[in-house]
């Protein structure tokens, strides 16, 4: 891709982001200007399915969620390496060796997933 095409393409992405942000800001600003403003305690209470909320907004989560997020990080790193691999592995000079290398990489991570499964981390209790 030429430099010109590259920068125009991403400038278009930036323009879409700006228009999106502008749309939200204008909508909220217009809302703030047009709406009547008459708060009371009842109105400012957090909405919780129609009943009065109990306790605080903060609840300590179980470490299980952290492990799920961690699994996500590891497989995101795994997935990101598939992209450069997918662009080159069919090229001359790569071929079977590169294919095997990626399967070794995925294989190591599959062992981790197998371990997590055997230890019952993946079952929801």
């Amino acid at each position, binding site marked *: *891709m*030429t*430099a*010109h*095409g*590259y*920068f*125009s393409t*991403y*400038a*278009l992405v*930036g*323009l879409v982001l700006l228009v999106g942000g502008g749309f939200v800001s204008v909508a909220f600003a217009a809302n703030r200007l047009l709406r009547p403003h008459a708060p009371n305690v009842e109105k400012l209470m957090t909405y919780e399915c129609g009943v009065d909320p109990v306790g605080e*907004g*903060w*609840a*300590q*989560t179980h*470490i*299980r*969620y*952290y*492990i799920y*997020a*961690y*699994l*996500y*990080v*590891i497989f*995101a*790193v*795994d*997935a*990101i*390496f598939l*992209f*450069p*691999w*997918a*662009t*080159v*592995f069919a*090229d001359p*000079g*790569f071929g079977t060796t*590169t294919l095997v*290398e990626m399967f*070794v*990489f*995925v*294989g*190591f*991570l599959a*062992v*981790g997933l197998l*371990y*997590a499964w055997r*230890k019952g*981390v993946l079952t929801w*209790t």
Partner: protein
Amino acid sequence: MTAGLAAATVAAADLSGRGGPGFLSPTGAEVAFVLIGLVVLGSALLVVTTSQIVHAALWLVVTLGGLAAEYLLLTAEFIAWVQVLIYIGAVVVLLLFGLMLTRAPIGRSTELDSLKRWPAVLVAVGATATLLTVVVDAFHSAYLDLGKTDDGSARVTGESLFRVWVLPFEVLSVLLLAALIGAIVLSRGRADADGKGR
């Protein structure tokens, strides 16, 4: 300074003359780079100065997103999307779950202001000086041609990764495996100690 500016102008004129009108010329990219750099700096300062810890995590999203945009402007396309997928997508989620594991309260907390502010500033300035020295010394003669955008593509990364850096790549999978197993062992040990484990 003036010579550099003149060279940049000549380069920009050369590039913009090539493909007709576009949305962003290479000079525009340089201006955008500086502006986004200021946004990154400001949001990074807010990450460490805000007294609401969840807001710090959200400002971190702005900082990392701005850095992704900087990578894009340096034509490092692949790294930019790695930044979005891994750091904004995964690491910030991990950070938020990490915050929710602790008993950190929502809202302002005064104990976030550390009394060791001046030693921290000293360490930060020292680390910055070291990094600047190393980076400037290593790359002062390197030149990035913004007119050539292939260097940061996934293909170039893949070629060097699978031709030269295969062993580090495989070692990385072992590192990830060790981290995963370590996290599982630690979390299960804690769950068992609480009497909630299976």
